[in-house]
């Protein structure tokens, strides 16, 4: 099947620094696909470039065959791509409900989806009318993910959702992501290999602004040599 998203030789500069030097990547349709890499490798930059928040200097970003690399961010979002940034991007002064409502196209909720979200993340319902700045870190992360799925998306980009979360919450997240991945495609940036391994179908390892390994997650998960080659860099192999 044709990939949902294809990056072809993407180069991104931030200011005067060249951060990505030719990232090429295929994200197949459906399921969870993971980008691993140590701190500063370029994971966040890759997601922000896809979202149009940094502009690629060179290369193409094909979303269902259309090059979106020159589009403004809102147009990219309107194609059905949702973004859960590293800092979660929660509007603290808005209520949980308002945060969610902003992510709908016309301000109306689909009751059935909302009920399912409340099932997956009970905290969302519980704090529905509370200001979002009052949520805990884990609850904010749940809100950030809920916001991305309040309507069906074609592709969800998620940047390190497990950062700072307790193991029990991480287990919930794994279950939640499995459910979400049944209807959409997730491109997940992670440093937590345990989490990545539990979810990912394919994996790409990025280092120093370029992809250094690409393959099936099952292969990397079982091959200790591969792991030590690509993950020893700094990944905590929980």
């Amino acid at each position, binding site marked *: 099947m044709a990939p949902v998203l294809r990056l072809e030789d993407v180069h991104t500069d931030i200011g005067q620094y060249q951060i990505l030097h030719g990232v090429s990547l295929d994200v197949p349709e459906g399921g969870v696909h993971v980008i691993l890499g140590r701190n500063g490798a370029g994971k966040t930059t890759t997601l922000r470039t896809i979202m149009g*928040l940094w502009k690629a200097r060179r290369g193409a970003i094909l979303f269902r065959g259309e090059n979106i690399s020159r589009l403004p*961010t*809102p147009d990219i979002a309107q194609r059905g791509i949702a973004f859960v940034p590293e800092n979660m991007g929660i*509007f*603290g*002064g808005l209520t949980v409900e*308002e945060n969610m409502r*902003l992510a709908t196209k016309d301000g109306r909720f689909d009751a059935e989806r909302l009920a399912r979200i409340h099932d997956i993340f009970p905290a969302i319902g519980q704090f529905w009318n509370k200001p979002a700045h009052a949520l805990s870190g884990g609850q904010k992360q749940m809100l950030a993910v809920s916001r991305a799925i309040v309507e069906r998306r074609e592709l969800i980009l998620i940047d390190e959702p497990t950062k700072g979360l307790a193991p029990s919450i991480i287990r919930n997240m794994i279950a939640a992501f499995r459910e979400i991945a049944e209807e959409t495609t997730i491109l997940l940036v992670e440093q937590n290999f345990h989490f990545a391994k539990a979810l990912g179908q394919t994996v790409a390892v990025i280092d120093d602004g370029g992809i250094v390994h690409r393959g099936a997650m099952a292969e990397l998960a079982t091959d200790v040599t591969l792991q030590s080659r690509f993950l020893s860099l700094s990944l905590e192999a929980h």
Partner: protein
Amino acid sequence: MTDTNASFPARVTAGFDRFGGVLWLPVLLAIVALLLIGQPSTWATLTIAGLAMGMMIFLMASGLSLIFGLMDVLNFGHSAFVTAGAFIGATVLAWLGFWVTGSNPALNVMGLLIAITVATVFGALAGWFFERVVIRPVYQDHLRQILITVGALIVAEELVLLVWGGAPIPVPRPAALTGSFVLGGVSVEIYRIFAFLLGLAVYIAMYLVLNRTRLGLLIRAGVENREMVEALGFRIDRLFILVFMAGSALAAMGGAMWAGYQGLITAAIGSEMMILVFIVVIIGGLGSIQGSLLGAILVGLMANYVAFLMPKMALASNMLLMMTILLWRPYGLLPAVKR
């Protein structure tokens, strides 16, 4: 909040916030002023003057605060809209002649409303032009924003001098709004009541738009995190232009009201108000309408009380107010962004 391990100041602050917190500051200021002034009737007159002035400053400040908060633009040209509003309001009032000066109160008030409306509409259109030509090329570059908006301000003031000349211009005040009535031994100027009510109406309208509409939701979200609003699929540049036009329109409205209050205006009318307007925006919290209202009332009251008690200290007192508040709350009294 019942955490016994919390430090004493933290507990005091928590208790303070629970009972309305900073919203009591104007009341506190008024009580202190009453003790210092002594005569209740003088105090009442000054309080009403302070509230009216506060509401007019609120008109000028609220738009600037939203422009700061949403667009991250330092617009030192904001006072040009105040000045333009003042001169256009004064000119329209003069054109309307007997409407304004005649003895029919309905026509008087209509005349004033027409003048304010023309000034406000002009502010909106000029704001549209200003955003397109002056601001748009310098988004995300504070230094150039300061330089170019200060430059634009100078040009605008020169234009006012060119059209209206350098001599002070008298502003006809509608007959029905001139003078005062006595209430419980306190003389109340009618124009002040009008100014207060108009400011209040604008505040309520802004509050409703910001809190009850989708546009308002987008603006509040944009003040917190522009990038995320775009990542959710909304064109933030369309919000920018709307907010800039609204802010400029409000500044012009405030200018027209202030002109009627002053009775005599010069091309410096906007710049003279700007220090107070910036103080209001800073102590209220950038991007916060509630903060702007609270700050404006504090500044208006302070200016009037101190002008009576120690005339030489009028401006310095508001500077001191700002410094004290910033030491206590670095993000202002009611910051829009919750950390």
